[in-house]
């Protein structure tokens, strides 16, 4: 199917992948990871390969450099600068790597060797291809490469070790390594996935500038449609090893040819969008503006004895009682022997009302997870006040808190690790009953488990399966079922969808909204993704370095942010629309320069 799109002049192209097939042997039999894929890239072009997990995009990328393990069976051809990577000798392949084609890796902290200086590591690539280069020559070249990727004071930092750089800078150095030998084709495998959005925006800018200045072609592997819209010229969509379609970036976003692409784009969360059926969607139509101001008023100490207060569905949300009240909350992780303490959260105040979804958004290190854990009693709050269902969490005693635990549910980020691998899903979901309702008969318990599975739309038979037999999305549904088993008044969801593919994420979010409407629990929804938080939260709080910078309704915070960091965060979020993204890019750049 790709023939008609690949009409770009093959004589001119720098990379030609011709009916590539890759098969792996796994514990469960052979997996045909890449099926008959053909692609080409011209000099100076950015081709994005997008797909969800298991689509074969990473395998395709690694085949371009011949980096697949020996157990992989390959057929077809991968022609880089006129030579077929799959059939050249080992030594020839070595010579091609670095000079003709190079690679940028996903996780900068693991792509750099921790025990060598960055200068030495960049120089290694040069040394491999220019045996007789002198030390001074190498150093000069390395410093040029470091300056090219925007490392200030490269002369001195030549001798720094990787751990002395921040995440974004490490990624710059990884890019410098790939560029140092003047490769005209760079394969970038999820180059920004491990980074925060604000840093991601900088790295994307860098890649674009490099392409513009040096004419380097880039094969960009990503799952993020925003990143595609930001950087790509052409896009190849993959699904389960098949190439679904190849289009120019404009066409892909405006008029996708295939149904799969359309579904994929439809599942991407966007700022300002809502999940169908959410109260926010209803509220948006019934325009109700008082939410923000009254939030602070009704907080107070009245929440102190709200212990028995059930959510009252009759009242509008902003008049209900607060079930979580944080006042100048401090959370400090004590340092070890000879190490200073780490202040994860400082002086944060907020309220969560009964039946309300409070979205907490922030980048890594902002303290958002810590707050969620403190509410669930997993981390100790150290100062200020944090009242959860009327119970003071600063200096709490497990014995006194434990009756309240049954009124709180928790959904963890990693679906793979949140179930005991030795128990069936049914047993895991029944855990809350086993702990809190011991007198429940086994038959009743089973009945309840089946009801719960049904409410998260999992087939009944799944109760007998083990966690590893479920997919990530299914596990996260089961996790919701367990969290809701005892009809909690509060659910803490810590990045519940960040480990999932977008299409699966969309379904889990939809389910979340449906359950929230049905059971009317309050929720703290923690995420690093602004768009996700915006989609389902009644109110949003923005955290940065342990401080709550801003809070309000989605419209207030995202529509007219007052804080500079919030503005930068919003502007850095790439949107799945190439034209819109080009505008935002300029805006983000402006904000960065003013911020310094």
């Amino acid at each position, binding site marked *: 199917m790709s023939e008609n799109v690949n009409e770009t002049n093959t004589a001119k192209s720098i990379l030609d992948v011709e009916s590539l097939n890759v098969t792996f042997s796994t514990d469960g039999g052979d997996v045909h990871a890449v099926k008959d894929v053909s692609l080409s890239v011209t000099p100076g072009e950015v081709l994005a390969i997008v797909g969800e997990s298991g689509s074969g995009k990473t395998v395709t990328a690694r085949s371009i450099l011949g980096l697949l393990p020996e157990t992989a069976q390959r057929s077809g051809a991968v022609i880089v600068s006129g030579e077929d990577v799959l059939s050249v000798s080992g030594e020839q392949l*070595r010579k091609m*790597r670095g000079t003709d084609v190079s690679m940028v890796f996903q996780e900068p*902290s693991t*792509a750099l060797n*921790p025990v060598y200086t960055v200068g030495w590591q960049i120089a290694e690539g040069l040394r491999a291809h220019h045996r007789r280069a002198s030390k001074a020559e190498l150093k000069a070249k390395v410093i040029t490469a470091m300056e090219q990727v925007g490392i*200030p004071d490269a002369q001195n930092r030549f001798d720094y070790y990787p751990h002395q750089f921040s995440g*974004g800078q490490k990624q710059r150095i990884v890019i410098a*390594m790939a560029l140092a030998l003047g490769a005209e084709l760079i394969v970038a495998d999820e180059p920004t996935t491990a980074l925060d959005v604000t840093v991601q925006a*900088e790295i994307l800018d860098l890649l674009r500038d490099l392409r513009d200045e040096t004419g380097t072609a880039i094969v960009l592997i990503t799952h993020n449609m925003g990143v595609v819209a930001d950087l790509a010229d052409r896009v190849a969509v993959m699904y389960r090893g098949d190439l679904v379609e190849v289009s120019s970036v404009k066409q892909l976003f405006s008029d996708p040819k295939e149904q799969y692409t359309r579904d994929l784009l439809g599942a991407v969360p966007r700022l300002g969008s809502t999940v169908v059926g959410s109260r926010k969607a209803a509220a948006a139509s019934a325009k109700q503006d008082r939410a923000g101001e009254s939030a602070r008023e009704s907080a107070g100490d009245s929440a102190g004895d709200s212990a028995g207060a059930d959510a009252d569905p009759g009242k509008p949300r902003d008049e209900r009682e607060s079930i979580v009240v944080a006042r100048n909350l401090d959370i400090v992780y004590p340092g070890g022997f000879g190490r200073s303490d780490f202040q994860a959260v400082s002086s944060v105040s907020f309220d969560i009302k009964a039946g309300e979804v409070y979205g907490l958004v922030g980048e890594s*290190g902002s303290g958002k997870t810590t707050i969620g854990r403190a509410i669930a009693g997993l981390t100790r709050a150290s100062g200020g006040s944090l009242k959860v269902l009327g119970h003071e969490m600063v200096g709490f005693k497990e014995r006194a808190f434990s009756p309240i635990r049954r009124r709180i549910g928790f959904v963890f980020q990693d679906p793979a690790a949140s179930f005991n691998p030795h128990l069936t899903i049914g047993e895991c979901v029944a855990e809350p009953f086993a702990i809190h309702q011991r007198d429940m008969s086994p038959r009743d318990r089973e009945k309840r488990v089946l009801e719960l599975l049904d409410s998260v739309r999992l087939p009944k038979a799944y109760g007998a399966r083990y966690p590893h037999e479920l997919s990530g999305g299914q596990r996260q549904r089961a996790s919701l079922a367990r969290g809701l088993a005892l009809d909690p008044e509060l659910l803490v969801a810590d990045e519940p969808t960040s480990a999932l593919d977008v299409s699966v994420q969309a379904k889990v979010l939809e389910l979340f909204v449906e359950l929230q409407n049905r059971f009317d629990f309050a929720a703290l929804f923690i995420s690093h993704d602004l768009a996700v938080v915006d989609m389902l939260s009644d109110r949003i709080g923005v955290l940065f370095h342990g401080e709550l910078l801003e809070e309000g309704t989605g419209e207030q915070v995202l529509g007219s942010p007052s804080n500079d960091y919030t503005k930068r965060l919003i502007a850095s979020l790439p949107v799945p629309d190439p034209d819109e993204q080009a505008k935002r890019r300029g805006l983000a750049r402006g904000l960065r320069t003013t911020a310094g």
Partner: protein
Amino acid sequence: MTAAISEPGAEAAETSVAVKKPSGGGLGRYVLIRFLLIIPTIFILTTLVFFLMRITGDPISASMGGRLTTDQLAERIHAAGYDRPILVQYLEYMGNLLKGDFGTAISDGQPVSSILLNYGTATVELVFYALIVAFIIGIPLGMLAAYHRDKAPDAALRILAILGYATPVFFAGMILKLVFGVFLPILPVAGRGTTETEYIMSGVVGPTRFYIIDAIRIGNVEVLGDVLAHAVLPAIALGVLTAGVFLRLVRTNLIGTLGQQYIDSGRSRGISEFRLVTKHAYRPALIPIITVMGMQIALMLAGAVLTETTFEWKGLGFKLAEYLTARDFVAVQGIVVFLAIIVALTNFLVDVIAAFIDPRVRY
């Protein structure tokens, strides 16, 4: 720790242009903390050994039980103070230890500290030779095995390594004695030197008691040759055992680091497989290797006890076996406690070296 888990990469939040300043003094603090940790280790070990050795009774009865009358025995026990409360004896023992007094051997009346001094050097010398053998064989072969991972050379080397580990050091010694002393008599199989060498050595003024150093100092080439010839078989017996362990250690750790992304990153830039193994993977692998090697050196001391017995190498292990036969538990206890202290110190040194190689600790 929880902080690290719940908020991965807290530093990543900085914008990408900020660079962390190197904070000095990390290594110094590490060394200090690590050094302070030796004290409880040594304290626990000496206490443990003291009480264990005394569970079955006092050393005098154990040593002379059958040979003296009950009255004579009681008298000796009283004279040595073994009839006092055990805690008093314990405190006295620990106090003496601090002064470097390890007690007096019952069987030959020598102060244990002078035994340690006179024979300790022989053991250190043997361990040193064996370490050289272990390094020379173990590390390159480990690299070779990792390089040819899962191919025939790797399998052969691994089996060889397991054989090295599976062979009790005294059995290896006996086989070596059999082959090079009996069937193919080309090397000496007992002692640290011929009688003549021992005579010359006893005449050295201000001896270091390291025969190799003393031989070099007196400039006698023949003696030096003799000393080295005597060292060959014991060093091989003890060294091959450790070489097997080193080989496996280097192989496993190298394969581990070879799976890291920075190796793929190097590969993607055309760095040769050989250099990736010997340079890029080796240095990060070295840190865990060195730590485990420290423990291996401790095990070598135990191996030395057996090797010395096999080759009549007059070191601490040889003496230990002698005192065990004589049931002289004061001397046994002294030697064991001394070896424990040496082990603790070795582990400390090794950890410091490992930390020094790791820039994440250094800066």
